[in-house]
């Protein structure tokens, strides 16, 4: 990944923070605690790559994906999209940029309005941005997109309830591609589907990426899916990014103990990747009052006194490999 420096940066995050207020029980609602869904995340996504994001449920992947495209207002830090600082940009100024950033959702049922036809769903963004007027040209364009996404012409006037989960996911993909975006967040885009359908949709996403010059942020809790599609992978734990690196490198030689534990839990037929499954002790700690020092220390087999007290810095351990761990040299011997 030495060529990274010359490639265009589509998204750059600098110390991004997103806190949610904890719902208070009182009527007036005092200044309560906050859920630290994202707490200081920094990385870049380069043009044309698929950036995989993994981590346990609740670690803040969805929040990160939504904050990047400003469906949520960030609490702190900075988001640069295609050179524009969109951190505090008003909705009105964001509107023209919205065609460049899109999202594909997990739930093939909740993500399509049951009261609209497939044609209306796909055409909505085009009409909102006045890229087309209602009429045969719009329909032509919609049919074209549908065709690319593996949907037949006759489906255009049908309603979502008439489709299977995989087809619905194709409709959601067609909707986000209609605006001809640069950057697409795929939030667990295949997690709700059968395994056989999963690979179809993954292949579709791969093909579209090449045809349309897309950049993906591919979010999933399923490491095998992420590895299959990603160029680089970021691993999140409790609102922070703990490791980032090229997909192959990270997979073969995890630097963070958490990454190693996650990988050991992936069922594999790969004979070379021998080794026991590493079982993490304890539960995921609260993200309202996260542990001191390294957030992972409560569950880490390598934890020492230092981990309890000092927050590990985010450093480039090897070229293109970032990690936040005091003892990453020892990860190899772990397990």
């Amino acid at each position: 990944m030495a060529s990274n420096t010359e490639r265009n940066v589509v998204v750059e995050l600098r110390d991004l923070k997103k806190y949610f207020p904890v719902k208070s029980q009182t009527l007036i609602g005092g200044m309560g605690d906050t859920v630290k869904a994202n707490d200081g995340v920094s990385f870049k996504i380069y043009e044309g790559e698929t950036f995989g994001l993994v981590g346990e449920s609740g670690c803040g992947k969805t929040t990160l994906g939504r904050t990047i495209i400003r469906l949520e207002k960030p609490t702190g830090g900075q988001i640069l999209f295609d050179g524009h600082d969109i951190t505090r940009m008003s909705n009105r100024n964001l509107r023209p940029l919205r065609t460049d950033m899109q999202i594909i959702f997990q739930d093939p049922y909740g993500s399509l309005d049951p009261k609209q036809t497939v044609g209306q769903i796909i055409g909505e963004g085009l009409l909102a941005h006045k890229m087309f007027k209602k009429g045969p040209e719009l329909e032509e364009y919609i049919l074209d997109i549908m065709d690319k996404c593996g949907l037949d012409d006759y489906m255009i006037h049908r309603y979502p309830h008439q489709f299977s989960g995989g087809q619905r996911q194709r409709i959601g993909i067609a909707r986000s591609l209609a605006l001809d975006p640069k950057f697409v967040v795929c939030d667990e885009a295949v997690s709700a589907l059968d395994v056989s359908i999963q690979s179809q949709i993954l292949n579709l996403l791969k093909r579209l990426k090449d045809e349309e010059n897309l950049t993906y942020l591919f979010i999933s809790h399923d490491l095998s899916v992420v590895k299959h599609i990603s160029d680089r992978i970021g691993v999140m734990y409790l609102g922070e990014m703990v490791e980032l690196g090229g997909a192959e490198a990270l997979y073969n030689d995890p630097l963070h103990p958490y990454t190693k534990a996650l990988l050991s839990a992936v069922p594999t037929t790969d004979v070379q990747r021998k080794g026991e499954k590493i079982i993490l002790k304890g539960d995921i700690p609260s993200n309202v009052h996260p542990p001191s020092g390294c957030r992972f220390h409560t569950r880490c087999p390598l934890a020492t006194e230092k981990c309890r007290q000092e927050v590990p810095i985010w450093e480039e351990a090897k070229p293109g490999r970032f990690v936040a761990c005091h003892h990453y040299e020892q990860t190899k011997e772990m397990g």
Partner: protein
Amino acid sequence: MADKKNRKEQHYVAEDQIEDLQGKELSAEEQRRLDEAREKELERLEREDVVISPARMVWNNFKARKITMIGAGMFLFIILFSLLLPVFLPEIETDMANRRVGPSLFFWREGHYLFGTDNHGRDVFLRVADGGFVSLYVGAVATFISVIIGTIIGSVSGYFHGIIDNILQRFTEIVRAFPFLPLVITLSAAIGADLDEDERIFLIMVILGVIGWTGLARLLRGQILSLREQEFILAARAMGVKNFQIIAKHIIPNVISLIIVSATLQFAANILVESGLSFLGFGVQEPGNSWGLLLRQGTRDSSVIQNQPWLWFFPGLFILATVLSINFIGDGLRDAVDPRNVRR
């Protein structure tokens, strides 16, 4: 050609199987059969290129239930009876020669009346038809008022949650807790005497409307709160669709059925309350006319109750039939729009 016919039959088999199996506790074998039948149905829809809109689906669900269709039929009859019939019938006149005549099936003959006459010799049939108009009218206008208020307050509360929501909710609770019956009775006693008949009816409609919206507001608020978190709303926001467009294109179409159902049930409730008030003497009064008032006049004292039962029986029957039929329709609608009852 034969092939086509064969397919048609196949699909009916599949549809029947789905109906037989739906909603029951199923064994693994039956579950498999149900899945298979569903799959066949989907395939058929594919082949025949059938487009089923959500509205069409609701209608299919609605007419599938007998009791709902009976309700709809009854209600249609009552509408014709009370709204249309009075236009063609003669004026109601007092006729001292024909007082307190019992009901008769030979109503076309001189001196015979289908529903009998009251103690001024007025034809009860005509009075029930005419009174029905007032009862339905008052109920409908009151419902209209409360639907408007409830929709506005519920939607605003749900869509712009936070402080606005908090204030509106407290306000809703206050209105809910308001002792409404004593208020109407006091108002009616205090200013009722100074009002003419139209003003009284107007007052009743407004009061019924102004207190009746809280249920709908709460229902809508909850629905919209969960709707706005739905991913299709997020998708629209991600595409840069404006707030106003999101409300018009996504929120309203998804709650309109809820509003209609709620309005139907509210309508029935309003007819009952109006009848109750008039029955107690705090609603419509002479020279006005409504089912509640007729009921009041038919139960003036025990001798009237015993000797002229037709005076209370017919208005009572019509109140009962109206409220029942509207409730049947409302329940049927509620089931029909419930996404869990998908009948393709």
